[in-house]
């Protein structure tokens, strides 16, 4: 599903991200674990095409994203990759339902006539059927993250990248969100890449990849 080959990216003066090889099978659930600043998020950005590598290849679902032009890459990202962020990143002017609809707006994976139905079903699935028209700022942090999970799956994406999805949650909500994320990815047969610096969270996933050595600083 995801493959990185001899990937490198300059992050700053004398600081380089380098990943000789990384591979994730379709439907796998993999934790990318490591301390802060080790390059976990850079790796997610490279996989999702938000950053382009200076060298090497990034292949997602059989497509070398280096070959895609900017517009094609945007379209590919919307159709194939779902995002779950640490701070949820729901768009404040829009309701829970509209936030999920927004996830579908920028891709043509789901036909327009099915948008509302699918968004409603997903929100019901994450336990928010009663909060479809609630504004994000009126929802608890746990509820907001569940909306974000529904949005990440809205386009029947094949890959979910979750960057510290429990980082802003209390232990109880953290547990509930992890349960939901793992369940739904399994149900929808979606590949999950989850970045975390918490070992206990990383160990809940079947596979764990240690990212500690991804960033190299050149000797002065």
């Amino acid at each position, binding site marked *: 599903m995801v493959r990185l080959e001899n990937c490198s990216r300059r992050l700053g003066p004398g600081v380089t991200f380098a990943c000789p090889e990384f591979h994730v099978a379709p439907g796998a659930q993999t934790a990318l674990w490591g301390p802060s600043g080790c390059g976990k998020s850079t790796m997610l950005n490279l996989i999702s095409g*938000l950053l382009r590598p200076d060298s090497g290849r990034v292949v997602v679902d059989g497509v070398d994203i280096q070959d895609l032009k900017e517009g094609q890459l*945007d379209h590919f990202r*919307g*159709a194939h990759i779902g*995002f779950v962020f640490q701070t949820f*990143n729901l768009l404040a*002017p829009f309701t829970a339902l509209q936030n999920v609809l927004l996830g*579908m*707006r920028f891709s043509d994976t789901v036909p327009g006539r099915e948008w509302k139905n699918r968004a409603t079903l997903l929100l019901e699935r994450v336990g928010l059927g009663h909060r479809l028209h609630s504004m994000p700022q009126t929802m608890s942090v746990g509820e907001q993250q569940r909306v974000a999970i529904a949005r990440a799956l809205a386009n029947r994406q094949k890959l979910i990248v979750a960057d510290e999805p429990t980082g802003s949650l209390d232990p109880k909500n953290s547990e509930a969100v992890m349960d939901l994320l793992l369940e739904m990815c399994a149900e929808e047969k979606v590949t999950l890449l989850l970045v975390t610096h918490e070992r206990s969270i990383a160990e809940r996933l079947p596979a764990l990849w240690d990212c500690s050595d991804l960033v190299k600083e050149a000797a002065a």
Partner: protein
Amino acid sequence: MTLWRISWGYLWNRKLTTCLTVLSVALAVALISSVLTLRAETEDRFVRESQAFDVVVGAKGSPLQLVLSTVYMMDQPVGNIPIAQYKELLADDAYVQAAFPINLGDTYRGFRLVGVERKLMDHSWTDMEGAEERKPFVLDEGRYFDKPFEAVVGAMAARQTGLKIGDTFISTHGLIEMPEGAAAPEHDHAKNPYTVVGILKPSNSPFDRGIYCRLDSVWQAHGGGHGTHGAEEAGDTPDFEEWGLHPEEMVTAVLVQLQSPTQRYEFEGYINNSPMGVMAAIPINQIRNLYDKVLGWVKLVLLAVGYLVVVISALSILIGLYLSILQRRRDLAVMRALGASAYEIFGVVLIEAFWVSLLGILSGWLGGVAVTYALGQFLTYRFGLVVNAFRLSQDQIAAFFIVWIIGIFAGFLPAWQAYDRDVARDLADL
């Protein structure tokens, strides 16, 4: 969820800023819209009313003043001319179809008393613009004057003064606005009160502001003491003395209807070059000159101010959107992560400028209508001109389009800022 809906959502999310920006555009549009409407409407009305008579003949002086004082009941009369001139004009049937002598002099609470012959009350003319027959002196109630000191009151004058059939009133010398209940000046004509015998129907013309009586009422009101009104108001020698005539032998002006409007220039030249010692003026020409040469500059200055405000409004759109882009760079980055292209992000911001400009134009137009309506009420009261505040002219549509384009153009820089952002960095800055 269209891009339009997304843009609207963001505008709604920052209502106060959006309202202030819309207000700034609206102020500019209201100014431009009201200037254009008032200019066009007043010119249109002045021109239409100027067709009531083909030519005005009066004492030598300012032709514009002659027209304003006789056809529009504004400004001071120029002076007086011998009545013999009127009779001479009337006899010239090669040009003249009808001639109406008028005497201006006294007023009642700011409304002019106009001495006329009975036949003026039957005068009608064809409005070339509206192709309708206009009859400004149709009775609403009562009858026309028959004897000296009987008065027929125009609709506006009746409404403002409260004069009714059977009421009597005392005129004041000259054009003096007298508040109700105020003491009359010394030379008021208390010995000769007027009696209201008729009220005219509204004609939406300056004639609504007149109070009409027989020619000789004006002469008799002055008891032959100082003649009809004219240059004497300014302290000059009374005209009748200058001409060596009695006041009864003088009129202020003669309103002339020609056999054909095409004879206007010929007749004007004929009078002005004749040895009669009087002056002719074509009302429609004087009004067009006034608008083109004098009020044209006023319009340009006001429009320049309006467009300056538009530029300031455009800057406020630009600054408002730019700050908004900085504040929501995270949201824009999230939309990019969700698959929005840079062009779509550019479009979202540009559509916001579109909405702000459109709302500003619509509310500005309504504001302009309100301003025009308010000023129109004043114009109706002061000059008897009815202004259509809801007029939407091609000039206005063109101005609105220019404002719209400037407003959208102001969105380009912020839209480019949104387009060109580093998504990964904006997401990392969260």
